[in-house]
């Protein structure tokens, strides 16, 4: 069996007549944590949906452990269940992801769809709610939850299946800093490092925590690739792809003047 979880080969995809991906190629190894960086509209969310086999490429090919992910392949029930079981997707907007009337039903949806034995499902759902620290929400309706709680429920609804590959679209978007760090901490510790995690984000602060390797996307193509630190130091790349804004500041006047230069602010 190949060690590549995903192999994206020269993929193009148009979304409602607008080109979203344009001849993009990349590889994601098993057990690797990869970040897809890019500004709004760079194609990272689209790529994530193609990896999740929710859309299919117009041109090019996506291989999942060496097997082509085509619409036809997904028609096969056995493959469909195997794929959905192993690949979990957390959408950016939890209001989309949470379509059930209660948190319990939400988390039970995946296992029910994958036809797990019913007596196992109940226990597994409570276990997952416990792990995510949201047992007390089990009977609540999703529309009554806070943003942070919704995000946790969305994560729980995917993690209940214990997927091997997790595809995350902006996991910390629109959360307050406290909830953000909780989600990040959870993802860092999840699966003890044996899981494959692909995160689409434009948040550079947590990059080193959540990824071993990054791809920078621009206009539906890969504009750069490398380890998080290398990418964070490649200021011209980050500026060009609109991930940081060009920005001058003045140093302490008593220190030797380095002259104006582009800067990245990193938190300690």
């Amino acid at each position, binding site marked *: 069996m190949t060690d590549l979880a995903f192999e994206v080969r020269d993929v193009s995809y148009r979304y409602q007549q607008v080109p979203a991906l344009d001849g993009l190629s990349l590889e994601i190894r098993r057990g690797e944590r990869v970040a897809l960086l890019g500004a709004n509209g760079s194609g990272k969310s689209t790529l994530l*949906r193609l990896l*999740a086999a*929710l859309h299919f490429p117009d041109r090019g090919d996506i291989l999942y452990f060496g097997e082509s992910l085509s619409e036809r392949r997904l028609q096969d*029930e056995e493959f*469909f*269940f195997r794929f*959905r*079981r192993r690949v*979990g*997707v957390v*959408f950016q*907007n939890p*209001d*989309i*992801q*949470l*379509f*059930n*009337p*209660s948190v*319990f*039903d939400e988390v*039970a*949806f*995946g296992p*029910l*769809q*994958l*036809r797990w034995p*019913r007596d196992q*499902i*109940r226990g597994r759902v409570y276990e997952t709610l416990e792990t995510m620290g949201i047992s007390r929400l089990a*009977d*609540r*309706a*999703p*529309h*009554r939850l806070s943003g942070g709680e919704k995000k946790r429920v969305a994560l729980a*609804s*995917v993690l209940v*299946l214990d997927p091997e590959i997790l595809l995350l679209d902006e996991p910390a978007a629109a959360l307050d800093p406290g909830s953000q760090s909780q989600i990040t901490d959870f993802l860092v510790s999840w699966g003890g490092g044996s899981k494959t995690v692909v995160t689409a984000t434009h948040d550079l602060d947590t990059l080193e925590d959540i990824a071993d390797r990054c791809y920078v996307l621009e206009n539906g193509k890969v504009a750069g690739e490398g380890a998080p630190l290398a990418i964070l130091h490649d200021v011209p790349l980050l500026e060009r792809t609109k991930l940081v804004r060009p920005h001058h500041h003045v140093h302490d006047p008593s220190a030797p003047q380095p002259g104006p230069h582009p800067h990245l602010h990193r938190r300690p």
Partner: protein
Amino acid sequence: MHIPDGYLSPSTCAGFYAASVPFWYAALRRLRHALHTRMLPLLSVFSAFSFVIMMFNLPLPGGTTGHAVGMGVSAIVLGPWASILAISIALVIQAVFFGDGGITAIGANCFNMAIAGSLVAYAVYRVAAYRAAIGSTRRVVAAGLAGYLAINTAALLAAVEFGVQPLFFHDAAGSPLYAPYPLAVSIPAMMIGHLTIAGLAELIISAGLVAWLQRTDPGLLERTAPDAAAGPSVRKLWLGLAVLLVLTPLGILAVGGAWGEWSARDFADPQVRRQIAAASANHAPPQRAPSGLQRLSTIWTAPLSGYAPAFIRNAPIGYLVSAAAGTSLILLCGLLLKQLLPDRRRRRKTFIEKTTTTLARALQHAFFAEETANSGGFLQRLDPRVKLVGIGSLIAATVAVHQLWMLAAILALAVVLARLSRITLRNLSTRVWIAVLVFTGAIALPAIFLTPGEAIYRLPVLGWPVTSQGLRSAALLFLRAETTATLSVLLILTTLWPHLLHALRFFRVPVVVVVLLGMTYRYIFLLLETAREISESREARQVGVMQPADRRRLAAATAGVLLSKSLWVSGEVHMAMLARGFRGEVYLLEDLRLRWNDWLPLGALTAIAAAAIWFGR
């Protein structure tokens, strides 16, 4: 338009449930394959959209506002069968969760609005749009016409359902037991409002949204457009429309005397007998007049009798005059009571402010319901199935009993149950009693004067007689409406919606219906929030006074933005479902066992209901 509990007799309610079931069944069967695809989230989001659109106040000529049902646009976008389901689901959630429309009347309300409304809207749209291009103005006009005719058909059906009640259901003394007005009063009273206000609101929404879709998402109009694969031929639709017209009691009204309102003498006149037979699909009428008819034939002239000049005492003219008098009395009462509503303000609110208030109130109601359901009182601890059956049978008993004291006893029981379940009297009165007082009061009050019978008092100046039959009839209607509304609010304030859905599965409601109810309910809140945000931001930007045409355009555009958002949501939800293994089948985790200690309250509640029906006959 939403018929509350207590206005229709149990047999009428049962009849309309029975009439609706084949349509629901046919719709589910026809959509069986479609529901395995994007249709499932689309249908539920559309249903939620229709729910929210019913809360939109639309500016109408003359400074009034009205609201639409959305059956026009849903029949055009989803096709007639899916539209039947979508509107039915919205109506069920309204009845059960928001107390808008009665639980026993769900069958009748769905028949009028979801079934007849969707079918008429679809047929009119197909016929009127014919083969016009997707983007043509003709389609916009056709959509407006479809919405207008659909809502008026629904209103007419409701009026007929009200109007036949006093004929068939009255006690020995002649007091109507349910809706008290005959067809001659109920039809004009309903139709005046719908031909003008509600009809126009539906017209604006249907036409406005089709125009919006032509610009933003024309693909959605193709399902019901000329080349749609499985659509019936236009000729068949013409035929269908013609049949509907014939069936419409309005058509029969034009033929002879009001259908079902032949005077007692008509039953003896051979020529009239032939007319009646022709109008009732060749069923010969009974030889003798039904006993109630004899008494009710004087209904028209009751308040005017003795004072009316001779020409009014002439039967046909008297009939018309008192019908007009009755109708205007009802409308007048409605207007007066509306003025007494608590939230009257010095400045008239704009339609946007009204919409924002309505939306906020719906959200607040949901919030309150969930808080109370979690608060752990007596009813809260019962199994949801026990509550559904127990309270359901109490509601049925309330509709079935004919004794005022028994109604009062059930109401007292409901109040006791409410107190045991930590619902205060203050909450009951602000949430239920005052609203019912205003609505049913406006309808029940004129019945005191309009019902023929023994006059026990005459109004000083007007000389209108208060009849004992009228008093009894008004009291029955009023108490029944208050009691059923109290009971249904008990159900929802003590039960979490997800639990209620699981209870439905116990009663063999198809899984796909339970899932649709759940998803619709979920997305109602998302769309309510979105609608409120849109309205609030419009409110914030609103400077100066708008021209009426601009106001209508703005309202339609707001609904359009909400529709686009709804459609986007439905596509996204489908993705999210697929990602978690949705392959067209939906499953629920159900635990159908009843604990032994659930049987006791279940037995008690149903026994009380049965006893009430027996002793309150």
